[in-house]
């Protein structure tokens, strides 16, 4: 009797854990940034310290930022476990020895997703800024 009580508590705990995983998955699907189909025009401003910012306008059908930037051959980088990691923009490669890295913002605000998972909409303005220092 004691053993079966213990096992049923165990099974209940595992079931609750699995249920929470499923609920989190559903929450993510409901509230994740939604993509937009169709043609869009976005602008990307490339900011490098001590240089004039350069604005690039992209007309694209892409749903995510990475595809739009790839179409214009604006970025270089590599895939990682956390998504695509940008190492170069418009031919300017970040020098990791100098702690340089490329930062993505949208309308001046932080973006919580990588460029693989950042959806784009008509009129969006992005900035790619070369940062120095971790």
């Amino acid at each position, binding site marked *: 009797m004691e053993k079966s009580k213990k096992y049923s508590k*165990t099974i209940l705990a*595992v079931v609750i*854990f699995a249920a*929470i*995983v499923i609920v989190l*998955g559903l929450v993510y699907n409901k509230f*994740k940034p939604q993509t937009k189909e169709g043609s869009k025009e976005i602008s990307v401003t490339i900011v490098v310290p001590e240089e004039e910012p350069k604005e690039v306008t992209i007309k694209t059908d892409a749903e995510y930022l990475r595809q739009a930037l790839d179409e214009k051959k604006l970025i270089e980088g590599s895939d990682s*476990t956390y998504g695509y990691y940008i190492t170069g923009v418009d031919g300017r490669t970040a020098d990791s020895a100098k702690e340089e890295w490329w930062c993505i913002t949208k309308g001046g605000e932080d973006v*919580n997703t990588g460029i693989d998972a950042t959806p784009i909409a008509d009129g969006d303005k992005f900035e790619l800024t070369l940062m120095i220092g971790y």
Partner: protein
Amino acid sequence: MKIKDIVLIGMMSAMMFAIQVAMAILPLPNAELISLFVIVFALVFGYKALFIIYIFVLLEGIFYGFHIWWINYLYVWTVLFFVARLFRRKRSSLFWAVISGAFGLSFGALCSIPYFLTGGIPSGAAYWVSGIPFDIIHGISNFIVGLVAIRPIYNLVDMLYNKAKC
């Protein structure tokens, strides 16, 4: 504090940090052993584990750079420590696997607190939601690691610590 304690804290902090850095090269994001060690150290060393946690956090800051993520680290592992201390009489591997897994699932929510405070509800909510896939991986990997490794690691650390105390 005795010299033995200082040595113990130093060694355990260094071990946690080295393992975290080594596991960062694995192709599975958020899979980590730190939760396991925090639980085991909380159970075996008691409040000395807090010294280990905060030296680990300091090393992380020095290695990866101090940024808003480091503010999260100042409290997130301590939450797990206190949960472990609360249930310190439990010995079931499955129980600790569920605790560790639940901690992994809630990691993003716990880390989003500074974003709620600095950017308001939209910022905090956006940060949390965008990290849910990583939280799910974190929770499941913590559950599996806890199920498999928590009992043997606890037994080993407890045995060695008791031997050293004599």
